[in-house]
């Protein structure tokens, strides 16, 4: 059967029908299925977020009482973290793009890839089951001993998160081996696109950190199931040990979210600036540095949980060290813009938003790394705003940027550009309106996870709620027009943005094994021999074509 697969046809056309999709081993199809699942989960998580914000419009009960409010913010967190942001860039975008950027026909272990998608589905189903069983009210962090004694549906949620953890591990393992073993001979480590560096660093963290979450959740599961007592103080267990275990995973998890976003940003930034990335090696190294540092800073989540002062000192110092590779990246990105030819298409708008939002997210992180300030700000809205700037303002915005950037390549259709730009502005403005006021109320002392609040914070909460609705509507529109464009969008060309990496050499959409013939060598981030051809296809979409260089034949194939 496989011999009959036609590698000159697009992966969307060969073997159509859902029966073939659900058992596919094609990384692009698996990526597409991930993408659909993740966007659906994003809508769900966003829905919970809007419920939370609506409730907080004024002090006291607005739409629900505290038990339901607690479930809303828990589900918002759990869905967004475990189902959306962690798999968002690696499993959806990474899956689709990574092998093509390597010039490879697939990932190293296609069946493991499909298995990890079904683990994701299993985890998502269990999380939804916990919603169906009345929800869960522990907070997404599942802190013991509350998670041991609450009467809500903790077991399905915990086992769901456990499965999602292994889904993430297997994706990471797959990527590591693929990057090691499937680079073409001509592509050394420092000829890899920065996206691959970022995915490599991410995969390292996924493989090294997630198992600890696995064992932690397993112990919590057994704890609730048969009182094993490791985290239960009444049986002699240590509830704070849970926090150490949890954050040993969940701090790297933050970097599992943000590092691939940095890879996406690097790709888009250089393409739309039409010049090579500035300080390639520093950006590459800083990805690895972030991956390594991420394992050493979990203790800053426990600054006020009774950790020794020595431990606090060490973790505070290490936490600061994370700021340096992050700062290096921001400076290099900014320098990349210098003397470029900047095209403000939608992906670039998202990336510029990312730059600003990530700067705010990173700088506010410094407040929290300073021990004495953290004592005041810990568990207030300041922290909430800070990590939303990093996890949402940075990661999700970069995800949206990457989605728009690679959408034409993978779906074969252009999204509507004007409304795309409007939504990008909507996301930027809505996001800032939502979370800037939270910094102010946080530093004034508003604690997080509060259903009711004191009247002096009302104004900030109201602004935040209004912002959240602008944000939600913008993102909902994005999902709608992307779905619309699948059938109605203009047909995309092979290289609509003028990207220089290998995926823009592959046909649009790529063939079953990505390249109908072995891909040519391309010089990384070299834009001089690309030139713009407007109205290149019947729908009037631009294409960038490679000028035949003197020493090698043109290999780009059109159809």
């Amino acid at each position: 059967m496989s011999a009959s697969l036609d590698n000159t046809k697009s992966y969307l056309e060969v073997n159509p029908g859902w029966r073939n999709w659900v058992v596919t081993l094609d990384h692009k199809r698996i990526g597409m299925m991930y993408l659909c699942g993740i966007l659906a989960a994003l809508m769900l998580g966003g829905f919970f977020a809007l419920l939370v914000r609506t409730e907080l419009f004024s002090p006291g009960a607005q739409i629900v009482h505290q038990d339901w409010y607690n479930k809303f913010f828990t589900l918002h967190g759990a869905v967004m973290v475990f189902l959306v942001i962690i798999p968002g860039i690696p499993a959806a975008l990474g899956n689709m793009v990574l092998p093509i950027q390597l010039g490879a026909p697939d990932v190293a272990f296609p069946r493991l890839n499909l298995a990890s998608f079904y683990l994701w589905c299993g985890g998502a189903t269990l999380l939804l089951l916990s919603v169906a069983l009345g929800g869960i009210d522990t907070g997404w962090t599942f802190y013991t001993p509350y998670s041991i004694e609450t009467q809500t549906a903790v077991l399905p949620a915990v086992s769901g998160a456990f499965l999602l953890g292994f889904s993430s591990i297997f994706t990471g393992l797959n990527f590591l081996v693929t990057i090691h073993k499937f680079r073409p001979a001509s592509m050394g480590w420092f000829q890899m696109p920065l996206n691959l560096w970022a995915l490599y660093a991410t995969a390292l963290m996924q493989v090294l950190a997630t198992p600890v979450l696995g064992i932690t959740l397993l112990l919590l599961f057994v704890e609730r199931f048969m009182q094993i007592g490791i985290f239960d103080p009444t049986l002699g267990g240590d509830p704070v040990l849970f926090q150490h275990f949890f954050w040993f995973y969940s701090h790297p998890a933050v970097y599992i979210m943000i590092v691939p976003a940095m890879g996406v940003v690097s790709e888009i930034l250089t393409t739309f600036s039409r010049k090579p990335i500035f300080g390639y090696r520093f950006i590459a190294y800083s990805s690895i540095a972030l991956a390594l540092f991420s394992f050493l800073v979990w203790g800053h989540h426990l600054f006020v949980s009774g950790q020794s002062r020595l431990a606090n000192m060490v973790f505070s110092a290490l936490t600061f060290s994370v700021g340096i590779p992050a700062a290096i990246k921001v400076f290099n990105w900014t320098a990349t813009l210098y003397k470029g030819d900047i095209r403000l298409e939608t992906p670039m708008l998202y990336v510029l938003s990312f730059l600003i939002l990530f700067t705010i997210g990173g700088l506010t992180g410094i407040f929290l790394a300073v021990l004495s300030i953290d004592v005041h700000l810990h568990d207030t809205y300041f922290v909430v705003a800070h990590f939303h700037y990093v996890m949402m303002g940075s990661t999700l915005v970069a995800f949206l940027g990457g989605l728009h950037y690679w959408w034409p390549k993978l779906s074969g259709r252009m999204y509507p550009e004007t409304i795309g730009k409007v939504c990008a502005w909507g996301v930027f403005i809505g996001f800032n309106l939502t979370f800037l006021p939270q910094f102010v109320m946080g530093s004034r002392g508003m604690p997080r996870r509060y259903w009711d609040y004191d009247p002096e914070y009302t104004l900030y909460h109201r602004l935040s709620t209004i912002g959240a609705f602008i944000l939600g509507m913008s993102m909902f529109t994005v999902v709608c027009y992307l779905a619309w464009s699948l059938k109605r969008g203009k047909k995309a060309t092979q290289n609509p943005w003028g990207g220089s990496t290998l995926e823009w050499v592959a046909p649009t959409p790529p063939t079953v094994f990505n390249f109908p013939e072995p891909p040519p060598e391309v010089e990384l981030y070299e834009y001089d021999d690309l030139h713009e051809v407007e109205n290149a296809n019947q729908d009037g979409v631009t294409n960038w074509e490679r000028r035949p260089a003197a020493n090698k034949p043109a290999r780009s194939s059109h159809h």
Partner: protein
Amino acid sequence: MKVCPAHRRRVLDRFVLLVVLVGLTFGSAFAPASAQPAVPPGTPAAAPAAAAASPAAGPPAAADMSWWDKKAAEPYIYDGTYWLPPAASTTAQGPDDLFIWVLGLSAFFFFAITGAVVYFVIKYRHRPGHKAEPSPAHNDVLEITWTIIPTIIVVILFVYGWRSYISMTSIPETRAENQIMVTGSKWFWTFRYYNGVEDNVLHVPHDQPVKLTMTSTDVLHSFFIPVFRQKQDVVPRRFSYIWFWPTKTGVYRVYCTEYCGKDHSLMKTKVVVHTSGDYERYLAEAFTRQMSLSGAPLGESVYKKKGCEGCHTLDGSVRLGPSFKGTFGSKITLADGAIVTMDDVYIRSSLLSPQGQTRPGFPPSMPVIPLSDKEIEGVIEFIKAQK
């Protein structure tokens, strides 16, 4: 390098100016923000708002209220600078100064980076005829510079943060009267003073070090007093400590900041900073009052202080547990099918061994609350009185 305090203040003032700038920029989206909190703290205008917003601020029946309860019912003081609540302890200065410094620094980097981004985007935007100009793809001097400068900055910040943290966590000698036991339970705080006085409001003396020894009876809580800039998690079966040295009298907010379940957001109370003499007077008079209580009034105080209110109402409405209204003497069915009379014996055994007396329709969540015989009698009398 030694910097005299006055100089430091001036430098700080400049930063405050910067902060205002940042605040205005950050806050342009919410300009009315500066108008709202402009009501000066403690003015009569603010008082009713605060009191109305917080039902726990004090019952209206002021006739038999003690002077310290009246004092605790005064409006909260919460208005500080644009960014921070008022500072009312000696250790607040360190983190506050650092906050302003970091804010200034952040503002600088934020405007530098955003400025550069916006400038580049405008200057190098694509337009007909414009092309990317050749420029170097790396510059090691630049890279090393922007690696080293942030490194130096964060080292300095770390050292200052560490130093002020040490002073915030080094507990000085405190006299016995100022050592207070704090117990966090779902969802109320209990403060026990050295002479046995128990209260749900924290009373502390002005201008003396106060040490709190804290533990929890159930899940994690976290004790947070914004105006003292102090926060510490409260862990079951462990003790944790914080201390502060109040510098301003008044009534301030206390929050629980570690999520602890359903009523987490209602688990707040207040700290009353008394002048030194008033504090001793409070201890003595509260002690007398506590000792003199018996019967139903004692039961009522137990009902309020031990968090019974959270589950058992007096108005007939049902929460986690049955209401006390009009139940005394009635026949009730237990979970195992037995029918008993709700009398002195039943209440007593329910208090001593709650799990043995569960009723259908209510979760078996009543904890054992250690009470003296006198207190148990008081509770019985109190329930009797709920006709």
